[in-house]
């Protein structure tokens, strides 16, 4: 169990991967949202898009607060990834397997968040897998292996609270393992 302090984790990933949805599924408070009308329907056919950050909260055992931050997905807001990611112990990287360049998405976000100092622990949650899921997953495994990263890759329907809890539990276990001084 991680003791003693509030924790900050970040939900990152490309546009439409489900970051805002995931935080909404798990937050105990009404999440703070900065969704604006989406003019770029070619990139993603969503009515709105996050342009700054999402914020939610979850209370852990011992009344510690898990602070949940979501980043914008589009590259023109990449300056927000550093700002929102500062001080995060972990990142849940949500990937959408229906996007045209799944490997490219994985690479972009693994590099962006892996370059932070100190590097946060990362867990990948993949949704919208096709019938031949293995081929899609291989694209992600390749990017993880190319970076010699220890990053679990899990399939998750992030519209459900259970899936988001599973991703968070996995990330907290990684954080616990990497920072034993936090363990009771």
């Amino acid at each position: 169990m991680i003791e003693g302090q509030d924790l900050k984790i970040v939900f990152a990933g490309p546009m439409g991967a489900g970051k805002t949805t995931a935080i909404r599924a798990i937050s105990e408070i009404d999440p703070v949202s900065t969704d604006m009308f989406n003019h770029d329907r070619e990139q993603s056919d969503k009515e709105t898009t996050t342009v700054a950050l999402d914020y939610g909260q979850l209370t852990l055992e011992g009344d510690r607060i898990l602070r949940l931050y979501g980043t914008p997905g589009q590259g023109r807001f990449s300056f927000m990834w550093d700002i929102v990611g500062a001080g995060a112990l972990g990142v849940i990287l949500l990937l959408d397997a229906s996007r045209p360049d799944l490997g490219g998405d994985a690479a972009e976000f693994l590099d962006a968040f892996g370059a932070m100092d100190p590097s946060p622990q990362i867990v990948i949650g993949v949704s919208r897998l096709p019938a031949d899921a293995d081929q899609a997953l291989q694209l992600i495994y390749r990017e993880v292996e190319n970076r010699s990263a220890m990053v679990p890759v899990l399939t998750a329907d992030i519209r459900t609270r259970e899936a988001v809890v599973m991703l968070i539990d996995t990330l907290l276990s990684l954080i616990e393992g990497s920072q034993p001084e936090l363990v009771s």
Partner: protein
Amino acid sequence: MSKAIRENPRMIGLAAKIVEHFTQNTPGVQAVVLTTNDGFEVASARLEKSKAGKLAALGSSLQAVSEAISRESGLKSVSNVFIETENGTVILARVAGVTGGMTLAMVASQSAVLGHLVWAARNCCTALTRVFQS
């Protein structure tokens, strides 16, 4: 940027003229960008392309955070955001009545008179509203 705006060069051209006129005729204004609320540059003045794009994205993020603070505080929609520094000011002004929302972001020198800037920006935004509502 939405197809409606992108495929209407007349609208964009008019907006660019209004932004240019505001920049030329408001003492102390150093740079201006008109941005959609999801961070696309519509028009700009005295900024090279990449800088305009960056300021558009930054401005839209700041506008969105300001709207969130306002909502959480029980206040109404944001009219202006001011960033005061030692050597100048950044102001965001809302362009009302445009589908999806637009913001006028300007950088002004220390010598600019704040009240005059706000008044001139308000007039500029009113003119822009007329363009995009037509």
